[in-house]
């Protein structure tokens, strides 16, 4: 039984507090938007392969905050080397959730490498992630949500979601606006933490 992606992401981001979220282009961005727009969301609409590294730069800049990267298997595969880069830096406040349907949903559901058994969890563990695991049951969502807020990173979760195209939920697309809104919200919420 594979996960419903919208329901799973909604559960991960419930009562999110001051969690910082970076979403990979395509369906992951739509899923994060569908869970509720938030100024501490960085929605990507391009830069495929770069989502995890944006999470690393953010996690290093703000060690006082938790950073969650939510992205698809295609984006993670394009940035596979970034798992090694993250493994070197060992950011304890970074978690990556791969919404893995083993297909390229945006381009017509062509099979991805994970469809052929390429194992992102094993790759993350080989890259010295503190923890990595596969999730297939919706009842595990609450535990994964806790990991995003308090688990010792770097973490990678491969969430096996159903291979289906769900309706698009389109958030803010202007990159300047996304950046300015994020920085303003982070500054207000965390100003006293800056050195």
């Amino acid at each position, binding site marked *: 039984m594979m996960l419903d992606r919208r329901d799973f992401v909604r559960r991960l981001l419930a009562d999110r507090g001051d969690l910082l979220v*970076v979403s990979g282009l395509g369906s992951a961005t739509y899923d994060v938007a569908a869970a509720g727009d938030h100024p501490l969301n*960085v929605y*990507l*609409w*391009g*830069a*495929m*392969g*770069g*989502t*995890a*590294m*944006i*999470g*690393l*730069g*953010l*996690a*290093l*800049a*703000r060690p006082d905050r938790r950073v969650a990267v939510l992205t698809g298997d295609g984006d993670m595969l394009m*940035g596979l*080397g*970034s798992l*090694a*880069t993250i493994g*070197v*830096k060992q950011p304890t406040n970074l978690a990556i959730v791969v919404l893995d349907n083993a297909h390229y949903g945006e381009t017509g559901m062509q099979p991805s490498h994970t469809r052929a058994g390429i194992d992102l969890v094993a790759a993350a563990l080989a890259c010295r992630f503190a923890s990595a695991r596969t999730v297939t049951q919706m009842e595990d969502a609450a535990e994964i949500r806790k990991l995003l807020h308090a688990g010792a990173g770097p973490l990678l979760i491969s969430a096996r979601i159903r291979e289906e195209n769900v309706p698009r939920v389109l958030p803010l697309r202007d*990159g*300047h606006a*996304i*950046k300015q809104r*994020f*920085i303003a919200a*982070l*500054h207000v919420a965390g100003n006293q933490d*800056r050195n």
Partner: protein
Amino acid sequence: MHSSERALPSLSDLETSWPEAIYAQFRRADIRQVGYVPDAGHSRLIALCQADPTIADVLLTTEEEGVGLVAGAALGGQRAALLMQSSGVGNCVNMFSLLCNCGIGCMILVTMRGEFGEFNQWQVPMGSITADVLRLAGFLTYRIEHAEDVEAVVGAGCDMAYDGDVQVAILLSQRLIGPKQWTK
């Protein structure tokens, strides 16, 4: 004459200290993250950044990872710079769109290959288009031929990049870097 008795090449302090001049500008501009793929031309600057506890040095597997790093750092309120060879510029092209789309200030220092005295012709095709690629990708692109220009150009570039949220690339010519540091 025994090799150990051979006189060292006489280079002025200026010719050998340009990495220190770049590092001093990084400190002045409060750059807090530096991403790089190991590179002979940048080796001294990389070592200076690694030794500085106020700078997070991030070893990359490919240069395009660094573009994401810079964007994430900026979102978190930190300034980040990238060090790469001219070949690495070619690895970044699509990822550069992130910086343009979001108005992320970025400084890239590019050690040039494929030009002055290059022994390896495989470096020539990318080296010969590096400046044009950067300009097409939206970078203000400057080139340094002489060590005495490093401090002023890197300093001005940092101000433009991080005060103005623009993308600045500075090409360090192969003549400046010198053949001595390439050969091992």
